């Protein structure tokens, strides 16, 4: 059976996210982007509304919502502010999901609950100066010292790097074993030996705080390892499968936010005696944009639905992410074009959305990495 209707509850969540974005985030999004200022107050409000842990089961203080609702919520937030939605996405689909799915009850009790309530924020530390797409080339080492691990190394481009209290760190425990020698650890940010690099100056998503994080002889208790010894690579790959749905939805929201602005502008702005929408060159652009957004939304919702059904969704989420990110870049570029001079100044939002779109093709697996995942699935 195919049912393209969203449930009443899913629509309610979509509206709640839309209301918050259109009413609150819009007020200071341009200023925060200019100042590269972390949205502390908004994150607190969104935590109170339950958005930071919306996918986590009620048992662990989460919202108990399904992934389809999550897609709709992230899309609405991203229409206005992708810096906020990335904080939400990392916390929900990388950190909380990883702990809920693969952590043990003690770890869930201690670390997942405050993250699900949004009282604390999490970060996922995988990327390194020389290991991004090729995640097996981790240089961060966690040396087994008996009752603790000693962690040394550097992680780069970490979203929530400074604002997070709880890190999930991917590190090699046995480099000679390749990807089987990788483990994932829960590390508290205030552990001695952790130092945080300066806030990266970025092209877009400037109000999310991106930092490098350095580990020098950081002691991590044995009980903070997630899963069996050597589970880390699988943990990272499985967690990223879900993370891709969040970023795909973010790209979708960036695209649809820019589209909505371009559509509205095209009905107000006149040139050659008529609203520019009445010029085929503009109407056809908007038509192409609408089709791409519809496709992206369908891919996102399909991946989310598969995940909610407990079916494999790795390929579907890769398709969603690659497609949504690529069309976000195309749609936002066209939106800037439709708005012309207005599109190029910050007041009209679309230039910022275009800058934000670029990152969705890069982080949590570049579009090229998604194509590797998709193409490999074709031969199975």
């Amino acid at each position, binding site marked *: 059976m195919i049912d393209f209707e969203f449930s*009443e*509850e899913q*629509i*309610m*969540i979509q*509206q*709640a996210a839309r*209301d*918050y974005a259109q*009413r609150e985030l819009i007020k200071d999004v341009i200023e925060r982007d200019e100042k590269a200022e972390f949205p502390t107050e908004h994150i607190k409000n969104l935590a*109170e*509304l*339950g*958005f930071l842990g*919306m996918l986590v089961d*009620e048992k662990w203080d*989460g*919202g*108990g*919502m399904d992934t389809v609702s999550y897609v709709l919520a992230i899309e609405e937030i991203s229409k206005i502010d992708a810096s906020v939605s990335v904080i939400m996405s990392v916390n929900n689909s990388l950190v909380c999901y990883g702990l809920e799915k693969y952590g043990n009850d003690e770890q869930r009790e201690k670390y997942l609950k405050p993250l699900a309530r949004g009282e604390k924020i999490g970060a996922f530390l995988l990327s390194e100066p020389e290991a991004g797409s090729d995640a097996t080339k981790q240089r961060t080492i966690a040396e087994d010292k008996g009752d603790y691990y000693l962690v040394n190394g550097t992680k780069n481009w970490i979203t929530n790097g400074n604002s997070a209290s709880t890190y999930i760190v991917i590190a090699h425990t046995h480099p000679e074993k390749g990807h089987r020698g990788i483990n994932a650890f829960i590390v508290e940010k205030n552990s001695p030996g952790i130092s945080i690099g300066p806030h990266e100056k970025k092209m877009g998503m400037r109000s999310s705080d991106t930092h490098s994080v350095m580990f020098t002889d950081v002691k991590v208790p044995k009980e903070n390892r997630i899963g069996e010894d050597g589970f880390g690579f699988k943990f990272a790959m499985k967690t990223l499968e879900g993370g891709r749905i969040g970023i795909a939805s973010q790209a979708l929201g960036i695209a649809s936010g820019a589209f909505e602005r371009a559509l509205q502008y095209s009905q107000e702005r006149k040139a050659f005696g008529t609203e520019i929408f009445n010029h085929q060159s503009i109407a056809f652009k908007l038509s192409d944009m609408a089709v791409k957004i519809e496709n992206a939304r369908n891919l996102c919702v399909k991946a989310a639905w598969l995940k909610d059904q407990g079916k494999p969704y790795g390929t579907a989420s890769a398709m969603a992410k690659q497609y949504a990110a690529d069309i976000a870049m195309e749609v936002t570029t066209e939106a800037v074009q439709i708005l012309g001079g207005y599109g190029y100044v910050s007041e009209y939002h679309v230039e910022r959305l275009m800058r934000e779109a670029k990152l969705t093709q890069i982080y949590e697996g570049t579009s090229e990495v998604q194509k590797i995942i998709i193409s490999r699935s074709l031969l199975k």
Partner: protein
Amino acid sequence: MKILVCISNLPDTTTKIKLNSDSKSVDLSGVQWVINPWDELALTRAMELKEKSGGKIEKITVITVGDKIAEPTLRKALAVGADNAVRIDAIASDDYYVAAQIAEYVKKESFDLVMAGIESSDYNGSAVGGMLAEFLEFPSISSVSSVELEGDNFVMKRAIDGGTETVTTSLPAVAIVQKGIAIDPRIPAMRGIMMARKKPLTVEAPADIQAVSEFVNFEMPQPKPPVKMVDAENVGELFRLLHEEAKVL
């Protein structure tokens, strides 16, 4: 104490209104339904009062007169925090009908305060609150912009010409609320959305009441004439247009 908040289910305020070919009704296909913004503010204020009443206000009920289409709107009110919802299963034909139906329900239950938005943003009748009070023989306070619970009574403020009036009344009473009653409508939290699943939404059969009016015809407003741009250098032309065309000078 118990508060009843009257809710109108109506098209989202940004809906582009289209008339059916008979011009007696509005084409409601594809409409997104929302809580009337005034009623949403009333509910928000009711929630605020309950939360700081230290248990004195024990229950907030929301009620609407409408068919099944209105249920998502009622469930949103439950997600925002109302304790139970009631739907009188009938089409809201006119103000008289709606007020009379709600009055019948209020007579069966007991409420200390009934709150109604000053008007609904679809038909802008501004009549249900006042009529409801008359049917019930409750005192009613109109244009209320602030409600506080003080002791066992509600103290209300009304904006009047050049100042503010503070009023109390015997209970039960009807408060017809307007701008200022709450700052922003509440956004339902995940927890509220989840709890709304378990809260009661009861459907009541309508009382035997007839509407007293019917729609004869709707007309769309004339489209606004195009804006004329006048160059900043050409003040004389601006005055000429204001005088001869706009006729405001």
